[in-house]
């Protein structure tokens, strides 16, 4: 259900860290809460962000949710497929609906990120 190959935030984002890079997306719970996604605003490659800063936004028909990065880094690439197919965030939030790939600053992920089991417990609680 909730992939255990990545970390989670209390704001229902996931982060998959590998080789000094991190891919960021939102969870299945988050996409269900948002409803039909119709537009995703993503940062430009090369932009640098501090941990906790807002890097973009996901717009559903009814609501908007800001995207925050839980880690410091610079944008390597963004998911350009979302421009024509924002619904990928709904259909495949843990795969094709990824948002951005960040090159991590040296300090790496903050230690307040959750494992899949912890995140599942938060959802259940």
């Amino acid at each position, binding site marked *: 259900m909730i992939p255990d190959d990545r970390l989670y935030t209390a704001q229902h984002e996931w982060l998959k860290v590998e080789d000094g890079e991190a891919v960021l997306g939102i969870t299945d719970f988050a996409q269900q809460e948002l*409803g*039909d996604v*119709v*537009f995703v*605003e993503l940062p430009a490659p090369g932009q640098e962000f501090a941990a906790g800063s807002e890097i973009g936004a996901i*717009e559903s*028909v*009814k609501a*908007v949710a800001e995207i925050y990065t839980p880690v410091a880094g610079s944008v390597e690439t963004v998911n350009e497929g979302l421009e024509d197919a924002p619904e990928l965030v709904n259909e495949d939030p843990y795969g094709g609906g990824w948002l951005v790939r960040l090159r991590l600053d040296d300090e790496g992920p903050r230690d307040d990120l959750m494992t899949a089991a912890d995140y599942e417990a938060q959802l259940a609680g």
Partner: protein
Amino acid sequence: MQRTVLYRRHVESGARFGPFAGYEMPIQYEGVLAEHRAVRERAGMFDVSHMGEIRVRGPRALPLLQRLTPNDVGALHPFRAQYSALLTERGTFIDDLLVYCLGPEDYLLVVNAASRARDLELLEAAAAALGQGVRVDDQSDETALIAVQGPRAAEIVADVVGGEAAELRYYSFLHQDGEERMVSRTGYTGEDGFEIYTAADRAEDLWAEFLERGSDAGLMPAGLGARDTLRLEAGMMLCGQDIDEETTPIEAGLSWIVKWKKGDFTGRDALVRQRENGCRHRLVGFEVEGRGIARHGHRLTVRDAPGCAGPVTSGAFAPTLGKAIGIARLDCAGGGPPEPGSAATVTVRGREIDCRIVRLPFYRRPKRGV
């Protein structure tokens, strides 16, 4: 938080709920896009039982309503309905409403849930001031309201409540089972459709019957999410959001509900002044041309008239049009409202996005052969 009598039915259909005007209402079932499309292409069914129904009866009902609403209730015949409003002395909206004429001395006002208490208070005070001759009853709690909307609504309604309903003209209605049920050809989606007022204790069965018998025609339950995108595409105002106590019918492009020759009514003097001197504020429609979605509270500025600007009152992605649209309340001090086609910008999260002023409505239903 209150619930409508159809709450259990919504849970069965997998609704996601949200608060609206003190009620826990279904926001969506399958999804806003699917429900919106169903109403435009086939049919959708909404529970709008949160709406208020206030009955005004008696020999002095007509003069009372003529005095309190800007439209001409005197022009209304039995079994016809009329869009109107309750206004302040400043000519601004307390509420927008439908007036149903049940008989020469018998009217039903259908009002918004959020303003129901205030409307009732106002009507009761006006009735008391008249002394005898008019009685005001709040029938909201014993009345449920189901809206069936879409190009296939007529055949579904004919199947469930009888063919006579499908013969109704726009803004007409009929009674069934005495007064237990009232079927009206009205709606808030921009499609053909019906609103069915029923005794609250019979609503669950009626809802289930529509779901069962309408499914072949593609009927699906639709929530307030789709209702909002549908009404916005159709250029219909949402009271408390687009129109409120700071907005007059003239500013909202609803001058047609103001009947100048019918005699005096609350707010008339202020509206006459506005008609003669022009108005500073205007509600305008706009389309977003750049990438992004304007939302309630964002600021729209007309490009060639930077002094002409104001907040977006409704903004959403329009599923039928495939682009973002909105209504903004512009302050055009000195100048008139911007011409349709004028370039504008809206500021979204610090970014300026190109927009264009357009005439309302955004969407008009295609004429279909009978």
